């Protein structure tokens, strides 16, 4: 099927595939250091053929390093890797691919201007004989190959579609097809659900099960407990580069997994409920934003009062970011009004708006939230550089900054927020995601602005830091400020928000009070269901905030695609 003549020979030379349950991959005593940092230390991991094996851990626990070594992107300092019983040494990912591994990275590596079929066969193209030998791609064979693989694994895909026009879920299917086209028998999925809608997550889990039933070994790298419980057969938990837990999923509980991951039981942040909200700090009225081609925010009205957190739910790209940008003033509006503390700021500059009491934790931490090539101290001073103690608005020091004050403030911040850093002069870009985000959060909260916009405040942040940031946001509300919280994580909204508005296609399509809000209802509205009927919700994930998580029944038959926790109707939308 694949063009390269050598493949047929390789097929013949391949040893018979190991039977179900035999080790497809064994990692034995794997160690890896980066300078003085130990990323992996004596890690043992056995992946049995035809199973779904979850590799869990917080950010920085070493799971990415481990997978990079398995896929040939890094070379282990010590230990041995065996694939299907044979010791291997990968000089690069190509060796890993040749040995039957495939990896779907968190950030897709796709050619946006090319078709799905071209992306799938790129580098291993079927050729047709022509005037110039076999120089030309056999497009018909490529399309047929994509269709055949798509049908076999349930990966709904149009081979002729241009990849750049596809949704995140469809792009991920293209990545999986790429690995399957190269006959991957061991498929590594790195944080595969980060970019997916709840219904896309269902479809992905169905594909994972189907692939495992067909004999493919699937490695699911994740830090989301409900995913592990929903789809895996076995779990290996990493912390600080070491294995801290091995479970058969059916014997594991959420609490045990959290303890293995964090070394402590996490106290779930609970929304302590709202007091009486005070005066309105943000009022958005009939706001529409256009990107010149289409309306990306259409007729949105909302208000945020002192002492409340208003959540905006929605799948990424449904207008939330543009709504925030319009409130902040970085994006012009097509229609409507924005009022901050009663004053119309629709046409005002960002600086004006901030001066009226607006602080922002941006979604893009490295692009907008921080200056990655500057130090922690400098980043913490951004926006505070005109006012005492760092700056001065009048007098001879006007326009000059006190570097001493900058440093001492940063040191206080580091201590207060428990930022793990070598000091305030460390570059913020070299901190882990969670620690960098703590600096951004601390800097913005320090404004004590009556309105805080927090856009995805815990994206890419480890569990410990998530708890800390959530606690800070609740304290901020308790101090009588209003927060507009944009999040793609339903659990985060349930934990924090007093009201949840759901955006879909640029409009607010649903609104729930904290009492009404459930994962199912929000998930259905996020998927664009006209009536958010909780009984037909498409969300596979059990509410992670709920303590009584039940593991999927391992005795249930696996041959049908839908999983016990993935309802049949999950694939619509």
């Amino acid at each position: 099927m694949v063009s390269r003549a050598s493949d047929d020979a390789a097929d013949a030379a391949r040893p018979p595939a190991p039977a179900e349950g035999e080790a497809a991959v064994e990692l034995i005593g794997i160690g890896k250091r980066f300078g003085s940092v130990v990323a992996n230390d004596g890690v043992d991991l056995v992946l049995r053929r035809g199973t779904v094996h979850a590799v869990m851990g917080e950010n920085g626990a070493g799971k990415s390093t481990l997978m990079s070594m398995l896929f040939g992107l890094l070379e282990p300092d010590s230990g041995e890797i065996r694939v299907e019983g044979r010791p291997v040494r990968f000089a690069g990912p190509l060796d890993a691919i040749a040995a039957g591994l495939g990896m779907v990275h968190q950030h897709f590596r796709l050619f946006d201007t090319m078709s799905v079929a071209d992306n799938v066969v790129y580098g291993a193209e079927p050729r047709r004989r022509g005037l110039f030998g076999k120089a030309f791609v056999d497009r018909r064979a490529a399309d047929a190959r994509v269709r055949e693989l798509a049908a076999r694994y349930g990966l709904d895909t149009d081979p002729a579609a241009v990849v750049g026009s596809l949704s995140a879920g469809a792009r991920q299917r293209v990545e999986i097809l790429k690995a399957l086209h190269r006959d991957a028998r061991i498929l590594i999925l790195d944080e595969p659900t980060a970019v997916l809608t709840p219904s896309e997550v269902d479809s992905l889990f169905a594909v994972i099960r189907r692939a495992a039933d067909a004999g493919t070994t699937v490695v699911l790298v994740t830090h989301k407990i409900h995913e592990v419980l929903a789809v895996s057969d076995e779990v290996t938990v990493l912390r600080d580069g070491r294995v801290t837990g091995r479970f058969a999923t059916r014997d594991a509980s959420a609490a045990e997994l959290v303890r293995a991951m964090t070394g402590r039981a996490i106290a779930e942040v609970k929304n302590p409920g709202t007091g009486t909200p005070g005066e309105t700090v943000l009022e958005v009225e009939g706001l529409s934003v256009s990107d010149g081609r289409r309306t990306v925010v259409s007729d949105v009205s909302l208000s945020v009062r002192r002492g409340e957190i208003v959540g905006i739910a929605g799948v990424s790209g449904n207008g939330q970011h543009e709504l925030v940008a319009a409130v902040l003033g970085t994006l012009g509006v097509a229609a409507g009004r924005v009022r901050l503390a009663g004053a119309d700021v629709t046409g005002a500059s960002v600086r004006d708006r901030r001066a009226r009491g607006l602080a922002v934790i941006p979604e893009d931490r490295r692009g907008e939230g921080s200056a990655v090539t500057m130090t922690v101290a400098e980043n913490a001073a951004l926006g505070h550089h005109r006012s005492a103690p760092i700056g001065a608005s009048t007098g001879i020091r006007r326009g000059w900054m006190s570097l001493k004050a900058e440093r001492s403030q940063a040191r206080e911040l580091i201590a207060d927020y428990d930022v793990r850093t070598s000091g305030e002069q460390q570059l913020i870009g070299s901190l882990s995601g969670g620690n960098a985000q703590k600096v951004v959060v601390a800097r913005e909260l320090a404004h004590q602005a009556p309105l805080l916009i927090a856009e995805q405040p815990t994206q890419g942040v480890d569990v410990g830091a998530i708890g800390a940031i959530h606690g800070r946001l609740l304290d901020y509300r308790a101090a009588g400020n209003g927060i507009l919280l944009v999040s793609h994580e339903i659990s985060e909204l349930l934990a924090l928000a007093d009201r949840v508005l759901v955006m879909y296609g640029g409009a607010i399509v649903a609104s729930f009070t904290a009492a009404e809000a459930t994962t199912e209802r929000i998930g259905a509205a996020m998927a664009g269901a006209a009536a958010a009927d909780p009984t037909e919700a498409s969300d596979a994930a059990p509410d992670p905030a709920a303590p009584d998580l039940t593991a999927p029944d391992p005795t249930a038959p696996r041959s049908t695609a839908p999983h016990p926790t993935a309802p049949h109707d999950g694939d619509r939308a």
Partner: protein
Amino acid sequence: MHVFELGFVAAVLLAATPILYAALAGAISAQVGVFNIALEGQMLWGAFAAVAGSYYTGSAWGGVLTALVSTALFSVVLAVGAARWHADPIIIAIGTNLLAIGLTGFLLRVLFDTSGSFSPRGLEGLPKMAFLADVPVIGPIFAGQTALVPLAFVLIVAVGLWLKRSAGGLRLRGVGEHPDAAAALGVSVASYQTWVTIAGGALCGIAGAQLALGNVTVFTENMTAGRGWIAVAAVMLVAGRPLWLPVACLGFGAAEALGFRLQGIGAPQQLTDAAPYAITLLVLVATRIRFAKRASLTTT
């Protein structure tokens, strides 16, 4: 009226051909992710090498071959510097352009003991396709041209098809669009970039040969006079669609040919000389505005 006679079409083709070869070089470099602004310098080197080659071998085709091979070698600096050592291609290209001016002037003095221009008695220019003279329409357009003129168009179509249909073309485009993705699938980004840039050098050599042995039969210092930059503009204009290159280059060729015509009826030479560059500027500004509009649609 007489501006639109067949002779004018021939003049447009003549003016456009060197730009076409250079633009094709720039376009394939762009497809592989190397922004090549060394076209001007490489073309100038090609022109010098063509004249020197023709002078020493006594054959115009010997001159073309000399230009092709030596400009390919000349482009190795850019190819290896940018693709293997990850230097900034803009910086290397600027160096290339400055080096070409200095080196050709220097060699003119050292080898031929002259300056300004070099046109020795008996210097072989490229033969014209005089055998076409009696064919209607084709004759008046092509009889006075070298074979390199129609070859440019054939080459562009062939390269365009190869890019679109062949496995090598698919890989080449992938390297330019997302190098990491290509590398992860076993395609050597550095190799593609190196060889495509060197092939671009060869094309610039042909551009220089057509300029110095086809359009005229002389080498003068800095004789490319911005044609390489117009080729860069054409590359930006077609934005990754090489099959549109002829349209862009013929437009610039028409501006140059029209300038000559207008000189014939008394327009000041300085003004008409500026016409192709003025048009380049206008077209670039116009496309930037279009791109800016398009970009503002997709980014926020």
